[in-house]
């Protein structure tokens, strides 16, 4: 396999991880995931529907041979809840990766950073491959790396907000200092947000709402796939420096056909 990205012992050919929530139908979800080119999808951990057996289930539409499954601990506000959810997720038997969320605020869904670090330490000890959803704070990212996280996943903007990369500087600082991969997770609204993240040097992006709630999720997924590849290639190609307040012409300065000779001095009283 052409390995683009390695997280822990897992290898991925796509730098985009895509969520499975909020789609208008499982059919659209399946097409959008194919269109995105991803080989890793996130899922939530919830009770089986016991009342309506005819209802379709997510796993009828996700082929575990094609997609690596990344369960999340969405909805967990405490360390204990997150650990319990992670253990249940692993017991389902499809993955020992965990997208670790310990939420600190219900309105913004910002992470509880202390809880996140504590839960990361505990789950790393139990052998999980931990991918923590975190803020764009450098110190927390470093603590998560020290705690054994397989990567760090700083948010670009609040989950589902579509605001893109609200602090490119913070994301860049994190990328420049961490040894583990950095995956921008949350806030992606459109394709260019992904290109921006990849041009900053991110190792990947994770998104759900930006595709699922787009008017045309299948084509948005395709646009995002292209943006991810474009952004990564631009990053690897070494962009020019930003120059403020001066221009540097692209065309030659030497006198040529189109550059006029200096104006002659008007000599007074010439006869």
């Amino acid at each position, binding site marked *: 396999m052409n390995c683009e990205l390695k997280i822990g012992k897992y290898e991925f050919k796509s730098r985009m991880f895509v969520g499975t929530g909020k789609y208008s139908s499982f059919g659209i979800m399946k097409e959008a995931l194919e269109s995105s080119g991803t080989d890793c999808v996130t899922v*939530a951990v919830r009770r089986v529907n016991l009342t309506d057996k005819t209802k379709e289930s997510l*796993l009828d539409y996700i082929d575990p041979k094609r997609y690596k499954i990344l*369960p999340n601990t969405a909805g967990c506000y405490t360390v204990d809840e997150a650990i319990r959810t992670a253990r249940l997720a692993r*017991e389902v*038997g499809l993955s020992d990766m965990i997208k670790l969320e310990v939420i600190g605020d219900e309105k913004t869904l910002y992470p509880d950073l202390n809880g996140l670090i504590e839960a990361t330490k505990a789950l790393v000890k139990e052998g999980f491959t931990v991918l923590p959803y975190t803020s764009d704070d450098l110190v927390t990212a470093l603590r998560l790396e020290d705690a054994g996280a397989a990567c760090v996943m700083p948010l670009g903007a609040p989950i589902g907000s579509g605001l893109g990369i609200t602090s490119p500087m913070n994301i860049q600082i994190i990328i420049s200092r961490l040894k583990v991969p950095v995956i921008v997770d949350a806030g992606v609204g459109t394709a260019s947000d992904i290109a921006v993240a990849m041009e900053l040097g991110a190792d990947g992006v994770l998104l759900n709402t930006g595709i699922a709630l787009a008017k045309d999720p299948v084509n948005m997924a395709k646009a995002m796939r292209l943006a991810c590849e474009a952004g990564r290639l631009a990053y690897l190609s070494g962009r020019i420096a930003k120059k403020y307040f001066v221009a540097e012409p692209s065309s030659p300065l030497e006198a040529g056909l189109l550059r006029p000779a200096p104006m002659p001095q008007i000599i007074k009283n010439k006869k």
Partner: protein
Amino acid sequence: MRLFINGNQKEFPEPSSGGLTVKSLLNALKLKPEAMAFELNLEIVPKKDYDSRLLKEGDKIEIISFVGGG
């Protein structure tokens, strides 16, 4: 016997011999023991124990799988 399953109270007849195992409960619920997790009184029951672990009156059970999420 009365069991709490996924937040709901349910009555299950106790089998005449032995007792009600996790496996027999799953059969009664028409659930396959694949791609799911079984939690009994906040403790995960490993799949290898489904045939042997017995349920008792008042047990709190969570049957968990994956749903869509980001």
